[in-house]
Structures are given as C-alpha cells and as structure tokens.
C-alpha cells in the first residue's frame, strides 16, 4: 500500500519536474531578452530540480543513495539561486541593457571606472562580436 502510494507520488513528481523543466527551457529559447530568459530558466531550473530529485528520493528507499540525493538537493538549493543571482548581477554590472533601456540607469551604485562613459560604451553587440 505504502509502496504503491510512494510510486505514484514519485511518478507525479518526476512528471511535474519534467514539465517544469521543459517549459523553462522553452522560455529560455523563446523569450526576447536576457533578463526574461533568465527569469524563465532559473525559476523552473530550481523547482524542476527539486521535483526530479525528490521523485528519485521517493523511489530510492532507505540507504546511502537517499542521503546522497538529499545532499544533491541541499547543494542545488544553495548553488542554483546563487548562480542566478551572480549572473543577473554581473549582467547589470556589465551594463547589459533591456530594449527599453531600464538597466543602464541603475549603474550609479557600481563604482567601476567612474561614470564617464555613456550607455553606449558597452552595448549588446560589442559584448558578443562573433
């Protein structure tokens, strides 16, 4: 009884996790600018990982694998949002602008090399000249 409930629960969690991750990846691919892609990717990334690892934990049974999965969960809990935060901060820091030009006004609190350069000193194109 307990086993079948666990199996169903685990299948539901794995399925939901897969759904969230795929939807996040579609967002990563289709959204128009960096910050909204970032939003789609990092939110679903964290939730999808929790669901998948949680689903695996339910099938693992007692033992070392369960403990390791729990560790993975804890690490993802710490690293995934932090990486997202650092990434967004770095994008803002490098003056990556939204199409509307919102982000470049916020760089007054970044002390990097004074405030001499205008918003064009480092635009999206020069950040990635292929």
């Amino acid at each position: 009884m307990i086993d079948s409930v666990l199996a169903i629960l685990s299948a539901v969690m794995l399925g939901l996790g897969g759904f969230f991750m795929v939807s996040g990846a579609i967002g990563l691919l289709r959204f128009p600018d960096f910050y909204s892609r970032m939003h789609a990717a990092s939110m679903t990334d964290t939730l999808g990982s929790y669901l998948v690892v949680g689903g695996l934990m339910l099938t693992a049974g007692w033992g070392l694998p369960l403990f390791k999965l729990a560790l993975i969960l804890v690490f993802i809990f710490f690293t995934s949002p932090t990486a997202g935060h650092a990434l967004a901060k770095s994008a803002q820091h490098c003056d990556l602008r939204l199409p509307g030009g919102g982000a470049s006004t916020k760089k007054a609190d970044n002390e990097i090399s004074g405030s001499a350069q205008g918003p064009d000193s480092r635009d999206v194109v020069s950040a990635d000249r292929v």
Partner: protein
Amino acid sequence: MIIATAIALLVVMVLALVRALLGPTIHDRILAVNVFGTKTVLLISVICFISGRPEFLDIALVYALINFVSIIGVLKYFEYQGRDEREGMQ
C-alpha cells in the same frame, strides 16, 4: 516515468544548447551553461537509477559542486574582461 524524465532532460539539454549556440550576448551563453549543468546533474542521477546502480550518485554530487564553481569563475573572468574593455575605450 523515469525514462520519460530522462527524455525530457535530453530535450531540455538540446534547447539549452541551442540557446548557448545562438547567444546573442555572452550572458545568455553563461545562463545556458548553468541550465545545462543542472540538467547534467539530474541526467546523471536518472542514469544511475535507470542502470539500477544508484550507489554512483557521487558523480552527480560532484557535478552540482563543480558547475557552481565554474559559473562563478566564468563570471569573474568576464568582469575582468568587461573592466578591461571599458578602460581601453576611455
């Protein structure tokens, strides 16, 4: 369901790879690598369960750590680079 999850993970990896190839900015690529890394952690855990030897989760664990370190490293060097190009332009 585990197999369906593995296939979903592969699909996500393909989409993230496409984003990493398309760019357009370097931050998009870094974001794609980050997503890709997390998905690799999950894919490896899932492979462990599919192949019936879940004691190999150490590898997924090491990925979860290394991925974070490399993202931080990439961002750090990009800040160096950004500061440099800015100084060059003045």
